[in-house]
């Protein structure tokens, strides 16, 4: 019902943008409640995604990266950041993507970088979604005081300026991937919690939940077996958005030198590329690959997300451009719309 490629809340740095999803600060949004009753949510979603070209392209890109990340130690054994004497070489048969000013093989750095970037992205994604689910479900199911309290906490976290918080947290915790992950979860969970809460709330008010209560089900079971399965698509969307957020924010932090500089990751590759003046020396091959990888992974995730939206909300599905009235009376909407546009 909403897309998860969000307008940048800070209009500033998309890299460290939070996964704020459906805006709706308490106010009813048209269409917010109009998510059609999912048809057998899980199977339908998977099936829908399998037949959706967008999802397939996205999944393919993502799988390639995951495979590369897993195979990195095999493809490029040894320390990818090993410093050698072959500095600043252009791409060649020996070094497909050339070398950095420190003589590191850019290809090895890029592929090894996928490991940490994907690890952080996925961990942050899963963890913040999990927190979001717990908070959202508890909020929606128990309502009343618990909801008030959890919503307050969520909203406060949403209102805290994200980047400053990131910067401060990243600076004072000991360096390491763990810190980066923790910091990103702390700043990232609230967005997903809000989205999931509003969805859980709308499912909570469905009769089947009341029916489960009447039949004597316990709270935990209702939350996880009755409500949760019906949120599959929104959980998936939130998850993807959080992964994108995690990857982007990690890169942003690292670029500022606030990450763990000693790991090999895409953000750090860019940090070092900047430090070594890759652009000034015209060593584009140092600068381009990691940025492109981040973009491709984010793009792949966004595509899948987009597809999830389409699958769960048939209205968003792409429709073929209408052929001019081969059949009498195509849709009225189209004719009026085109008229409106030519008139202007």
């Amino acid at each position: 019902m909403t897309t998860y490629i969000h307008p940048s809340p800070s209009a500033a740095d998309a890299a460290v943008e939070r996964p704020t999803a459906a805006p709706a600060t308490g106010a009813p949004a048209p269409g917010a409640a109009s998510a059609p009753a999912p048809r057998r949510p899980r199977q339908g979603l998977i099936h829908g995604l399998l037949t959706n070209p967008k999802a397939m392209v996205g999944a393919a890109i993502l799988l390639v990266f995951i495979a590369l990340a897993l195979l990195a130690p095999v493809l490029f054994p040894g320390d990818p950041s090993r410093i050698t004497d072959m500095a600043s070489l252009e791409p060649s048969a020996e070094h497909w993507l050339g070398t950095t000013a420190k003589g590191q093989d850019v290809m090895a750095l890029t592929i090894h970088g996928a490991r940490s970037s994907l690890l952080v992205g996925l961990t942050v994604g899963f963890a913040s979604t999990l927190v979001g689910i717990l908070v959202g479900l508890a909020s929606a199911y128990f309502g009343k005081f618990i909801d008030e309290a959890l919503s307050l906490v969520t909203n406060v976290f949403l209102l805290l300026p994200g980047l400053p918080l990131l910067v401060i947290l990243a600076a004072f915790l000991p360096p390491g991937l763990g810190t980066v992950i923790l910091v990103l979860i702390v700043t990232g969970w609230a967005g997903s919690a809000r989205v999931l809460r509003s969805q859980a709330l709308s499912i909570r008010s469905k009769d089947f939940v009341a029916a489960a209560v009447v039949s004597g089900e316990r709270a935990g079971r209702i939350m996880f077996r009755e409500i949760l399965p019906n949120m599959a698509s929104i959980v998936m969307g939130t998850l993807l958005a959080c992964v994108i957020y995690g990857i982007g924010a990690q890169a942003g932090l690292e670029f500022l030198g606030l990450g763990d500089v000693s790991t090999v990751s895409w953000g750090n590759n860019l940090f070092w590329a900047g430090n070594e003046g890759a652009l000034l020396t015209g060593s584009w091959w140092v600068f381009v690959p990691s940025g492109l990888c981040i973009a491709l992974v984010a793009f792949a995730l966004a595509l899948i997300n987009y597809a999830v939206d389409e699958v769960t909300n048939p209205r968003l599905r792409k429709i073929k451009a209408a052929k001019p009235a081969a059949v009498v009376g195509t849709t009225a909407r189209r004719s009026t719309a085109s008229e409106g546009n030519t008139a202007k």
Partner: protein
Amino acid sequence: NKPADSSSSSANQNALLTIPREDMGTFIRNFNPFAPTVNPMVQQSIYESLLIFNPAKGDTTPWLATEWDVAKDGKSITFTLRDGVKWSDGKPLVAEDVAYTFQLQKKIKGGFEYLKAVTPEGTNKVTFTFNTPWSPALYDVGQLTILPKHIWSALKDPEKDTNAKPVGTGPYTEVESFQAQSFVLKKNPNYWQPEKQKIAGIKMLAFAGNDGANLAAANGDVDWAPQFIPNIEKTFVAKDKEHRNYWFPPTGAMINWQLNTTKAPFHDPAVRKALSMAVDRDQVTKIGMSGYAQPADCTGLSGNYDSWKNPAVKDNCSWTKLNVEEANKLLDEAGYAKGADGKRTLKDGKPFEFKISVGASSSDWLSVANVISQNLQAVGVTAKVDSPDWAAVVAGYEQGTFDSGIVWSANDPSPYKYFNTSMGSATVKPVGTKTFDNYHRFGDPKADALLKEFVAAGDEAKQKDIAYKLQEEYNDAAPLVPLFSGPEWGAYNDTRFTGWPTQDNPYATLSVRAPTTVLVLTTLEPRK
């Protein structure tokens, strides 16, 4: 207003010397020299000192003082002030100003513990008396910038004043068109050597980091580029070989790899030496410092002290040269045997592993640490680079909880402070008590005695003699692992201004933050 566009000499007459400041994203109108972050040029072109020491050549230029006398007992110095020096508001410089400056300095910023009194004698003589003979004092007091008493004594809280319209004796004192991103300093109308104010003024540009400043330099938008420029031949010089040049004299502070000597195995000099021998300083300077720095020798002294170096020590260095074999041997002998996996273990059976701490924002030193860590693998030692925020790193240094780290060192005209802070017992504090200099916590009674002699030594020849002995001691004890002399970055573009210091004419360095900067400012002239 690119320099390249205005090659005509008349344009150059009015051109402003444009200098980037790479670590201030924005300027604040604050020209108070006591501010922790002083605006650029405050101590270079607005206020001046009594004398200027030029480390590139090792000579001293009299500046506001024309001459000085060191008392025989070494317990006082008398400076004679230059005649005809005026503050930019037209008032004359008097000895009272000097005395007041030191009074203010001690009150606000402390230091100068050895200083007993500063006594003006008449209007043009001022005498500094010390508690004990203190030979490093000459440059210490001589290079402090002097403030006008008539202005500063009128302020209630001098340290809290923003000094928006500074009054100084320097060549360019008039602040104009002040913006957060740039400001201009125009000529001091009352400068004491008006013939040397050949350029129309100075323009400072603010940058949030090296990248921006480098871009400006590469693009030819600035005349002087004192920041680190990666691969300078290619990114800077190559764009205009005729006019662009750089010079990185090794006159900066010695950059050391410090090992926490309160911890095993670093308490063992053999280990320190062995580790030092495992480090490939050529690679360190090449990778970490883009090849701009000079590898250290076992005197521990940077290029700043070339004239102080003991040739006997310098020419027979063993432990500052790469020698993996010897390093392995030393470690084996010291009892840190290699295991089957090629990794050494400590005497308590734990693996020979430690951290090298560097602040995350110092990417050059991070590379240095990475190279060292990589080098150490060859001797079976595992060093992990730890790079939290500088604040955390320094906190570890101060408390003595760190394993090892890359640090700067003192850089005075005299080598006293370097040896004092690397070997002087007086500077050693127990672990857990904060210290601000001897982080590695190494004290040496032999060195203590020599240091005492040094401060009491009146003439330079005697000081040198003691310094030689200190170097021998340093060579024996290896309190630190010296890596390389910090280079004084500097590059320029002489399209509009000529007269820059170079290796052939080292009248100053190309630093914009050094006492010698004013020498450059008063030498440059518009290209005709």
